[in-house]
């Protein structure tokens, strides 16, 4: 007896021959299948294409991979070393205090000097590298498109930048000529910004804080803290003419000038000056009154017999014992003292420079029953706790201790900036600014949410495009669900058509199947007859379906070409899903054929061959 496998091998050929013989019916079936397959492929392609395009755009634009700190705070160097090694972190550079991170550039159109933000960069900076620029080396700058437009320079030009500072009441400026290495595409941001290596940014910060930067020829020393005040009281022998009064709040840094009564003056200064003086209260409208403001005011009042007394409203000072200390600040020379009806301050009149060591830490203590101490340890709460000792140099004429007003100016500054006290030299010093922020880019957009959460876990709130990324993820999930719903609908329709057609084919071909049995096919062999036909129909349907998809996808991508960047497509099938779609279709076709196959095996050849 010959091997049984042989008849089985004939089944596909015979099944194909029958399909070819009934080619119109077969063609209709193939078209019906293609009509199910092609729209599903297009739908899948559209879903994948649009989602990928959206994702690509996010991925492509580094802005969507950036995590920006929401608050300014200090970060130690070690923090950067640690975070740089986190998975998903592609780029990290420290930034400094935003106020110190600025450069003055001359605007081309107006000829005025304008302040542009200066941001540190480093090798690997995706914002620069992915927006048409290289990373600048020392002596170079990369400009944002807006900065380049306003400064009127392009790549390869030289740009003179200025760093301004106010030291001991004098405005100082350092200059640098830098090469414009590149100009970023507008996509990188609409603000006027300059990008330079971190070392340069740190030098700018140092200079602004008063330090010298010898490498760049910028003069300076270890800087003293600048003085800041809440306002000033102007005392004159006679009222000012209105025009002069108005002039005092123009270009002086002061914003408001009002006549002040005796009670108000006492509240602001802590003591009552001699009677009969005209008093005006000046302030910067909530802003900071600086030494240059005071200087500008003095300039305008030249010729008037006057005393200008800056004041600091509120400080948190405690004596060593922990009880609050509320000294009043007063620095008057003999002339001023005479006009106010006081004695001159032992430390002399107001001076923007700190003067000899120990001058600022002098104090006049009120007369008490006990012998007043010679030295008084004091702590001031600011950015950090500032601890120093006051030396008693005399007796306070008031109920409260008196200190130089410059001390209060320093302490007020210390509430906003790091200030240290050098006990050996008896002087206050501006602390060098540490790193106050960072520029962080994730490697992929999908890393952003995790990094966002991880930073939040460290108590660092960041601003990131987490929402945009999650929106796409939600859209993806929604479209996937929609796709599956539509798939289930149309696939069940297609399967039903296949089941019905294959079954009908078996019924129609009972006699032929009976003859095949008579010729030596076993039941098991005719079982595969409809199965083979299902697979062949499915295969042809897939070919037609993919052809339909390809032409439709081409048309779709063409009609949206104007919206798309080169290489982007709205309709594209994920490569991994193509074999899956083929396998699923064939599997479904075989399943659909099983009903017909079961019917085929039940055909009785003795009956079938006698049917006419």
């Amino acid at each position: 007896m010959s091997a049984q496998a042989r008849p089985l091998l004939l089944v596909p050929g015979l099944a194909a021959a029958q399909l070819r013989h009934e080619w119109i019916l077969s063609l209709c079936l193939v078209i019906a299948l293609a009509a199910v397959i092609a729209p599903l492929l297009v739908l899948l392609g559209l879903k994948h294409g649009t989602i990928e395009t959206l994702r690509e755009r996010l991925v492509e634009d580094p802005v969507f991979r950036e995590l920006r700190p929401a608050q300014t705070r200090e970060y130690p160097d070690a923090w950067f070393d640690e975070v740089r090694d986190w998975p998903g972190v592609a780029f990290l550079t420290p930034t400094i205090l935003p106020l110190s991170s600025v450069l003055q550039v001359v605007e081309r159109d107006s000829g005025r000097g304008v302040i542009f933000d200066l941001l540190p960069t480093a090798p690997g900076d995706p914002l620069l590298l992915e927006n048409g620029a290289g990373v600048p080396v020392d002596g170079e700058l990369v400009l944002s498109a807006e900065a380049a437009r306003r400064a009127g320079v392009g790549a390869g030009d030289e740009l003179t930048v200025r760093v301004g500072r106010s030291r001991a009441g004098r405005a100082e400026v350092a200059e640098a000529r830098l090469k414009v290495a590149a100009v970023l595409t507008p996509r990188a941001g609409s603000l006027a910004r300059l990008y330079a290596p971190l070392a340069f940014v740190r030098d700018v910060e140092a200079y602004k804080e008063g330090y010298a930067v010898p490498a760049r020829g910028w003069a300076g020393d270890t800087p003293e803290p600048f003085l800041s005040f809440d306002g000033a009281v102007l005392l004159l022998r006679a009222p000012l003419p209105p025009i002069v009064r108005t002039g005092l709040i123009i270009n002086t840094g002061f914003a408001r000038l009002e006549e002040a009564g005796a009670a108000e003056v006492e509240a602001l200064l802590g003591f009552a000056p001699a009677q009969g003086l005209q008093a005006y209260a000046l302030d910067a409208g909530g802003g900071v009154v600086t030494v240059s403001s005071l200087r500008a005011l003095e300039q305008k009042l030249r010729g008037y017999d006057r005393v200008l007394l800056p004041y600091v409203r509120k400080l948190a000072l405690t004596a060593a014992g922990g009880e609050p200390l509320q000294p009043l600040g007063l620095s008057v020379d003999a002339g001023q003292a005479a006009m106010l009806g006081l004695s001159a301050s032992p430390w002399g009149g107001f001076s923007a420079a700190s003067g000899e060591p120990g001058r600022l830490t002098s104090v006049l203590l009120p007369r008490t029953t006990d012998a007043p101490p010679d030295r008084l340890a004091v702590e001031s709460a600011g950015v950090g706790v500032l601890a120093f000792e006051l030396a008693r140099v005399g007796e306070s004429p008031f109920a409260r201790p008196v200190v130089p007003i410059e001390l209060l100016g320093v302490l007020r500054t210390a509430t906003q900036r790091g200030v240290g006290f050098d006990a050996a030299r008896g002087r206050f010093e501006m602390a060098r600014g540490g790193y106050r922020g960072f520029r962080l880019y994730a490697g992929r957009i999908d890393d952003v949410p995790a990094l966002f959460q991880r930073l939040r876990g460290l108590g660092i709130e960041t601003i990131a495009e987490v929402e945009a990324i999650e929106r796409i993820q939600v859209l993806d999930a929604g479209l996937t669900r929609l796709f599956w719903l539509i798939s289930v609908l149309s696939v069940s329709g297609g399967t039903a058509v296949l089941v019905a057609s294959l079954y009908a084919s078996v019924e129609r071909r009972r006699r032929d199947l009976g003859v095949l049995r008579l010729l030596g096919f076993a039941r098991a062999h005719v079982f595969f007859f409809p199965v083979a036909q299902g697979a062949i129909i499915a295969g042809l349907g897939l070919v037609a379906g993919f052809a339909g998809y390809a032409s439709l996808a081409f048309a779709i991508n063409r009609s949206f070409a104007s919206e798309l960047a080169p290489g982007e497509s709205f309709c594209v099938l994920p490569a991994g899903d193509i074999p899956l779609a083929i396998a699923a279709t064939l599997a479904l076709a075989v399943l659909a054929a099983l009903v017909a196959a079961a019917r085929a095996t039940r055909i009785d050849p003795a009956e079938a061959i006698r049917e006419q």
Partner: protein
Amino acid sequence: MTAGAVPMVRLEGVSKRRAQGGSVFELQVPSFAVGAGQVVAVVGASGCGKSTLLDLIALVMSPSAAQCFEMSPGGGVATCDIRRLWASADEAALAALRRDYLGYVLQTGGLLPFLSVRDNVGLPGRIKGAPGGGARLDRLAARLGVAACLERMPDSLSIGQRQRVAILRALAHGPRLVLADEPTAAVDKARARAIMDDMHALARDEGVAVVVVTHDVDLVAESADLTYTFDVEQVNAQETRSVCRGLGRAGRA
């Protein structure tokens, strides 16, 4: 029938009961045998059970009861106990016997409409796993007068041509026994005789046994070695019984 030779097909005490729509038909075959190379005619009016007998021999219908049902293809192949194969429902073995040793000519040819005549004729050989040589096939086709039809589709053939092609297909793969079910029912008498004569002549030349079922005694009277007929008896209102009976060498004398 050559004395002492083992018959190719032997049925002893075989019966088939078929119930259809309230009426029962029972075919009884007390003794039936086909020797190697014999031409056996089965004649009778319609409804006498001759097709049922043929289906039993063709192994597509199971007997209701059988004392003995054997097939001996000869050529050193062991005798197969058909009764046992049916009892064990060994469908694959029955199909294998069909494809290896039997050829079948249907009333209306039974050609597969989706294959060309050549493919139809070649199919049994391919199923058997021994594709027939083209030369032999062409020779047989020439003898049957259908050599010109080989490349055509069955639809385009006349009924007579189809029957000749069906005979060619039944013989092409070298079977031991050809079963023909009213092979000439659809053609006129003259043509029928010519077809029948050709089939018998070819079978004798190829040494193939033939069982031909027909209602026309005259058609086979001269060529048949053995003739069987049926005695139909109405047992009661519902039941009809038909008993197969041998006639010996019919009409040769």
